[in-house]
């Protein structure tokens, strides 16, 4: 217990003692980053580790007078690269079947609504598995609220390529899901 909690707590303390800029970014971007990483295939634990490491890198980056423009894309790129380095879990990927255990709809939904929603998500999950890696990554970053320019910075792609990739991916999903 002590082995886990101490290294987890110390970076947080350092973050808390750091600049208010980092603290503000942490509050704003922690959840979107966690969501991106978890959907990429990381476990919740791994995603939390990666997010903490990314923010510590950010603190060092800002302390060393690094570039302050496009910090959001910078953070996502650092987190994305760290996720890539964790190859074993990264290859579990977003296409990991989760259908059986998902609570698909709100608790107050009728049984018919539940069935329909479940079917909709089952079809989407199947369609997502057919996407290429870059299509999936583009869609996940888009769902995280990133602009095409930022997605390009994270994935090292031209903005026009991002636009083409997003369009291709959305059309594939729409075709397979018939929504």
């Amino acid at each position, binding site marked *: *217990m*002590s082995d886990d*909690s*101490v290294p*987890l*707590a*110390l970076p*947080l*303390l350092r973050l808390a003692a750091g600049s208010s800029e980092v603290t503000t970014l942490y509050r704003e971007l922690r*959840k979107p980053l*966690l*969501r991106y990483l*978890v*959907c990429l295939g990381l*476990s*919740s*634990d791994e*995603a*939390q580790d990666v997010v903490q490491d990314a923010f510590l890198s950010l603190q060092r980056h800002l302390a060393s007078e690094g570039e302050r423009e496009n910090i959001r894309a910078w953070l996502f790129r650092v987190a994305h690269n760290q996720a890539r380095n964790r190859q074993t879990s990264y290859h579990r990927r*977003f296409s990991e079947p*989760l259908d059986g*255990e*998902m*609570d*698909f709809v709100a608790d107050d939904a009728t049984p018919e609504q539940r069935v329909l929603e479940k079917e*909709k*998500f089952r079809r*989407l*999950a199947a369609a*997502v598995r057919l996407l290429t890696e870059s299509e999936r990554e583009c*869609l*996940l970053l*888009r*769902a995280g609220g990133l*602009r*095409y320019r930022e997605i390009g910075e994270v994935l090292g792609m031209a903005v026009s390529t991002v*636009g083409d990739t*997003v*369009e291709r991916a*959305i*059309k594939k*999903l*729409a075709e397979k*899901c018939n*929504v």
Partner: protein
Amino acid sequence: MCDAQVKLIAWLDRELSPEEAAEVDRHLRGCQECRGRLTSYKQVSETFDAYCDMTVATKARRLVSHWVPVLASAVVAAIAMILVLQLRRVGSPPVLTPTVAVTSVPAISVPVLKSDAAEPAPRKMIRRRHAVPPVRERGVKWQPTETAVQIAIPAEAMFPPGAMPEGMNFIAELSIAPDGSVQQVRLRQ
């Protein structure tokens, strides 16, 4: 198929220049087919978004289910420790007096015992009680000589979104000795 169709998703994402966007706007007003496609792309984007949220929630729930036995055993261990402490506290006076009495009765090791047991014997007993289970030492007793470290971790930083039910909090108090070992673990709500 119409030309404007290729820019529908970029239009949806507000990634077009004002001129291009105005062109798509004009086209959409007159093309029912493209309006239908746009609705479809919008719906699938929203479904994908909801699917991401559920992936996160499902994995977070799995994480909680992994932690439940760990937390439960920690709570059980803490309760057991408290009970043992209480029992020791209640039981110690009657236990101590007989041992002092017993040490003075047997004549087997009289020379050894008598040299020590005349006065310092009870003090020795107390010292051993503290040395064997160091966990039971009360913080107040060792604090002046050893540094206490207090670390506050917000629940939302430890657990992913949704893992911790709203309004539920617990406080884990760890007393950490200078050598890094944990002296005390206390969970309370």
